[in-house]
């Protein structure tokens, strides 16, 4: 589904990703771990097409087609979804209105009639209950005045509403209390199926107790320096990153 080859990326005159390879197939869950500042968010932003990131070498393809040149909205409509590490607020634009606009544009891309407002609202209510957000949140401005944990749960609500093909979750588990972590994990698990894929970016083993990854990668200094199965995460939790970064250097 996603194929990243030898990716080199520059941001603000600085080279952050330095030859990154990653292949994700349908039905898989990948986790990326790595020290602060190693380039994890950079990777997710580049995949989503955020302006300001220059690919100086390498390529990204999605379902066999190169997407380097596509706008963020085109990629989103193809099914790439990014849950943000720091979700921003959009005052005055209700969550519901926002989600409907997003959903309609994705439906349109697939040449489908937009979902009826009735059905949409019904679905939104069900799913917001699933992520433990009161229905009032649907009427509030996007992330407007939400607590940190509520913002993260709202990202999962968007994920569930939009049903993308590839979900990139950038530290969605950070800042969650124990119950919220469970709720968010359940949300992600309910999304997961054999046709879609998940890329989890996390610092903590505890998320991986709820969602078992098929692959764990360590990103350090702009490269994947080690890949393994979920046991690698346990090892990292015990040993930290130094033993990997040292050998990589």
């Amino acid at each position, binding site marked *: 589904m996603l194929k990243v080859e030898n990716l080199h990326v520059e941001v603000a005159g600085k080279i952050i990703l330095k030859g990154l390879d990653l292949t994700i197939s349908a039905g898989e869950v990948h986790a990326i771990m790595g020290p602060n500042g190693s380039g994890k968010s950079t990777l997710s932003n580049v995949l989503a097409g955020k302006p300001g990131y220059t690919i100086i070498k390498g390529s990204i393809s999605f379902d066999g087609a190169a997407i380097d040149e596509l706008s*963020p*909205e085109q990629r989103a409509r193809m099914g790439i*979804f990014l849950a943000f590490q720091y979700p921003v607020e*959009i005052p*005055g634009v209700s969550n519901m209105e*926002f989600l409907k606009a997003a959903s309609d*544009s994705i439906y349109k891309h697939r040449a489908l009639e937009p979902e009826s407002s009735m059905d949409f609202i019904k679905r939104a209510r069900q799913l917001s209950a699933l992520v433990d957000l009161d229905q009032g949140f649907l009427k509030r401005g996007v992330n407007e005045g939400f607590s940190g944990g509520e913002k993260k749960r709202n990202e999962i609500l*968007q994920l569930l509403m*939009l049903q993308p093909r590839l979900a990139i979750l950038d530290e969605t588990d950070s800042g969650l209390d124990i119950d919220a972590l469970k709720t968010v994990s359940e949300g992600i698990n309910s999304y997961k199926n054999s046709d879609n894929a998940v890329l989890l970016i996390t610092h903590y083993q505890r998320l991986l107790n709820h969602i078992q990854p098929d692959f764990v990668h360590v990103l350090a200094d702009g490269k994947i320096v080690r890949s393994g199965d979920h046991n690698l995460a346990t090892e990292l939790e015990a040993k930290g990153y130094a033993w990997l970064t040292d050998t990589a250097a």
Partner: protein
Amino acid sequence: MSNSEINKLIERTYSAGFVTDIESDTMPPGLNETVVRAISARKKEPEWLLDWRLKAYKHWCTLTPPDWGHMNFGSIDFDSISYFSAPKSQADRPASLDEVDPELLKTYEKLGIPLHEHAALAGVAVDVVFDSVSIATTFKKKLREAGVIFCSFSEAVTEHPDLVKKYLGTVVSYRDNFYASLNAAVFSDGSFVFIPKGVTCPMELSTYFRINELNTGQFERTLIIAEESAKVSYLEGCTAPMRDENQLHAAVVELIALDDADIKYSTVQNWYPGDKDGKGGIYNFVTKRGACIGDRSKISWTQVETGSAITWKYPSVVLRGDNSIGEFYSVALTHNHQQADTGTKMIHLGKNTRSTIVSKGICAGKSQNTYRGLVRVSPAAANSRNYTQCDSLLIGDTCGAHTFPYIESGRSDAVIEHEATTSTVNEEQLFLCQQRGIDADKAISMIVNGFCKEVFRELPMEFAVEAGKLLEVSLEGAVG
């Protein structure tokens, strides 16, 4: 759609409006007593009105244009303006929609203007024009039954001279300011509304059925009177980009509310703003003021300003009656080289008077957007309150937003609150929208609409929807 395409569209839309042959019915440029007399004579006005115009003209001669606005434009040559031009003859108008620029029609469509209004807006010379003629007739009948007078200003002068004489110039005197004096001297036509005691106007008075009478000209004058306990909601303007060959507009609006009366005045202004380089465009200098003469009366202004090259307007309320209420809700959007200096004045004279000001300025391109507001509490106005909220939203970094709030309080028990914010549509918000599949133009319009929510809430329902779309069309191409 790209910026250049939009601008092309707008240019084409308006080009027809500006190039017109001088018609024989147009007076030679320049203003003098003879012109004022001629205007009055042509309208067969009574002597008292001519006198009033002449006094206004003489006063105007002593004035110079105000220069305190936060704006920059060349001086206007008042001698080059023709102060009377008859409405275009039928023969000069397009004979059918087939002759109308398809791009203009596309814009109407985008704005969701009902099909049957397209012809009227585009100036088609027909009255096949739609069922709206018959709707208008039905409406007029209903209004008459309720005792409401709603007619053109000229008609009011003929049919209801006592009412006009009693109230004309009582809120905005002919001495008020340069443009108000000019208007008083040469005003062409406008609207007159009278709601008698105890009557709630049975419908919103909108341009909807005034579009047949669009050509009220550049010096429009409106007078609305609500007697004791009367109630009315008046909608001015139109979201469709309007064609007009006159560059200078100086309108005057006077509202009068007696005891317990309630006037709600909503405006959507979308005159030609000029091209992307700032060429052309309407200069719009408006004096709008309401007087809450009666106790417990209420006047509420809501405006959505997106058009004009220059906007200079301060819809105000004089709170004379005890317990009277004044409100001002405003969205002013500027793009490209537009300049807007707008705001309000709330003059508290009566006891327990309250006023609310919510101003939303949206500023894109190379435009300048200024809020200028005055809250004055006179020594007699015991227990008065004002709440002002003044927010600016910047799109890009080549525009300017400015806020000039003036507060003059003559009482220690006055409660005056002022909140101001400036924010930008930031990349992160845009990216969030795009990442969810929403394109940049739609994202901007959503963010801007969200920003304006408190004002749109004040607009009559269908107007609010139109206003939302209008912002969207006005901002197309605001981000690269």
